[in-house]
């Protein structure tokens, strides 16, 4: 394991190892804050030198991976932020194929570099991750 830093806290010394994260997002954008927090936390994780394997969208979370939406000028562009986040940091973005079907979303409607896969791929990521953070369906 790669040691990233040594921090001192309450007179104790800690070795900070590189930790591998996976994110799961299950709520739709602009209604709940899950996607926003995922981006905030994701940036902080990468800044500290840890790794994110990828982001998996489940349930109505799949709407978060949709491109080609029209926002008013005062609104944050979440699909663009998400696109920049995964592209700039070389990570994968998967949308659950079952929920793509249930919502009628087509693969070509997903943002750049996103693709649809089954839950098997999520379990593969989980097995390769040290930590999995799940942003639930909201409400």
């Amino acid at each position, binding site marked *: 394991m790669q040691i990233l830093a040594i921090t001192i806290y309450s007179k104790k010394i800690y070795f900070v190892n590189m930790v591998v994260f996976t994110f799961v997002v299950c709520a739709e954008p602009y209604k709940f804050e899950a996607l926003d927090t995922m981006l905030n936390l994701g940036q902080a994780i990468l800044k500290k030198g840890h790794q994110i394997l990828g982001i998996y969208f489940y349930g109505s979370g799949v709407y978060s991976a949709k491109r080609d939406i029209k926002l008013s000028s005062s609104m944050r562009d979440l699909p663009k932020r998400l696109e920049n986040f995964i592209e700039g940091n070389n990570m994968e973005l998967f949308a659950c194929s*079952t929920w793509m079907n249930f919502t009628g979303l087509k693969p070509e409607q997903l943002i750049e570099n996103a693709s649809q896969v089954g839950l098997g791929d999520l*379990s593969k990521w989980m*097995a390769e991750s*040290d930590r999995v953070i*799940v942003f*639930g369906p909201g*409400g």
Partner: protein
Amino acid sequence: MVKSVIILCEDSPIGKNSAIEAIRMGAGIMAVGDLEECKIIFMGDSVYFLSKYFNPEKVNMDVPSNIFRMMELSDLDVYVLDSALEIAGIKQSDLVEFDNVKVASNKEISRFILEADITYRY
């Protein structure tokens, strides 16, 4: 490296799709063989899902037989919090009869969470 997962349910199974999706998700991630164990824990209002009198057809919603089949066919362990059953007024004899559905105490569930690699609420 995650090997064992716990999914928590708290919400009413008719008002929201959490119960069904927790099982679908649990069955899905267990299907491939990368993980060793997945437990689903029902507490709060979600416990109505495991009553044998649960009957979504009364409001023209889907019968969960497919979801129960998924639950049975996969290696999911489903636990329901005893005190939540009591609050809901569901007796153990009122529970659906599946081998992998078991009643558990708060003590047991607390231990399950400590033992699992990750836990999340759906």
